[in-house]
């Protein structure tokens, strides 16, 4: 491979990954149930990809264990509604297709950092407003999570009985509400901080590749 080509590949690697995963999922979706060996091959192929980027098996297993039962419940409900007479094809098909898609997505999100995903969105011409909102959200959801944990702890230290369901619901709603009010104030301060650095509503991005 020439120098230029490798550069091109490196430059667009993340976009390629996203588009390839999309192709893979599409392939899974387009294949009918009679082609199930193809599905299995795809799953095996993605699994090899996953082991190449060293996704721990235990993690994979745990994620699948959380994911598959949900799909199973839904897909089994199709034969269930007709007395288990018909519809097993669809159950089988849904299971195959969603496993392909889920495995492919796991591969994608583990082979890229969030920054890479965001910058490839940028290269794939996502609207800048959406991008800046996403980067904002990503930045602040961790702070919110910390804030929420500390509020929860503060609440626990002053709770002296096991709350009932209704009480629990009200408390949880108040927790989110309090978080919301605090964060709206924070977003006002952020807006001020942005304005003080010359923000006028136009969105500019830093070109990270040229260094």
């Amino acid at each position, binding site marked *: 491979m020439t120098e230029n080509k490798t550069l091109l590949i490196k430059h667009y690697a993340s976009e390629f990954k996203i588009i390839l995963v999309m192709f893979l999922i599409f392939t899974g979706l387009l294949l009918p149930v009679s082609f199930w060996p193809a599905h299995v091959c795809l799953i095996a192929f993605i699994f090899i990809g996953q082991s190449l980027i060293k996704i721990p098996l235990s993690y994979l297993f745990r994620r699948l264990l959380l994911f598959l039962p949900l799909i199973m419940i839904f897909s089994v409900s199709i034969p269930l509604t007709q007395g288990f007479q018909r519809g097993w094809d669809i159950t089988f098909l849904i299971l195959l297709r969603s496993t392909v898609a889920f495995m492919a997505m796991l591969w994608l999100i583990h082979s890229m950092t969030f920054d890479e995903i965001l910058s490839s969105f940028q290269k794939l011409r996502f609207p800048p407003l959406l991008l800046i909102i996403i980067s904002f959200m990503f930045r602040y959801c961790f702070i*919110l999570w910390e804030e929420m944990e500390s509020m929860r702890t503060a609440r626990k230290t002053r709770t002296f009985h096991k709350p009932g369901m209704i009480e629990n619901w009200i408390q949880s709603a108040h927790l989110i509400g309090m978080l919301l009010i605090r964060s709206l104030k924070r977003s006002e301060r952020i807006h001020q901080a942005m304005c003080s650095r010359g923000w006028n509503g136009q969105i500019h991005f830093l070109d990270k590749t040229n260094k």
Partner: protein
Amino acid sequence: MHIADGLLSSEVCIATGVISAGVVGYGIRKLNQSIATKTVPLTGMVAAIIFAGQMINFPLIGAPVSGHLLGGVLAAVILGPWAGCLALTAVLLVQCFLFSDGGFLSLGANILHMGVVGSIGGYAIYSTIRHFLGNTPKSIVIGSVIASWLTVMASAALFCIEFSFSFQNTEYDFSRLFTLMITFHSLIGIGESIITGLLVSYILKQRPDLFELDQTTVSSSQIFTRLSISGLVFALSIAAFLSPLASGNPDGLEAAAEITGINHLEQTKEAFVFAEYSIPLPDFLSGKLENWEWISISLAGILGTVSVFCISIFLGSLTGKQNEECAEGI
């Protein structure tokens, strides 16, 4: 709650994706036109709250599952319909690409359900109720509660419709599936509306200024748009309830078909449950379905081969890159 990939066929994924992209694109254009520079941090923050809020469990006694906030109506109540839709879109994108929660190709359907129906439809219902009940705190809470329940029902109905387009309905009993989905979702909807109601009433107590209680009256054309959108959502959720009942009773269905004069649809073996609402789609689809299967198989073959080939070529360099990153991280 999110639709995973594999539940909907590729055509439906593309169609919902196009609709959602159109609506979100329109929303972005609308927001770009507005001069308020505040929308960006505010929308981002509300998106973060919905994201964090979805992780808080609302336990159900005696059940191993627990509910959580969906947030479409909440975002719309605070941000307005367009920014609310955008916030939900951001949440769904991050959930998809960070936690693989909800499918990649069904992202369009997810945005359609939670962003478009949840936020824009929800806001239409909420503001209509608020308009007719008067601008009191009570009407705000009632409006948001009703809007949350209706939007959940409407998304469930929408999902059933999408599902029916995805699989040939000779293979399964559509109406029973529909009943199952609707029953299940009416419970989810109750949970969502209680959570939203509690939240909105709490915020109302603390920061009433967020709701512009002294809002000036809206123009009649706006009311018309809102009325029509909320009518649409309302009809969808009503349909969700009526259609399984109607089609569960074959006489009822036949009678309806006779009356509306569309009983020829029955003969095409595409007895579509919305026949009584005179959607002429099955006729158009039935001819193409056989061709489509072959097209889809060949398309799958091409796409599959190409992508496998490409991945095989790139895997080496990509994994190399990943290792470098790991080394950097350590």
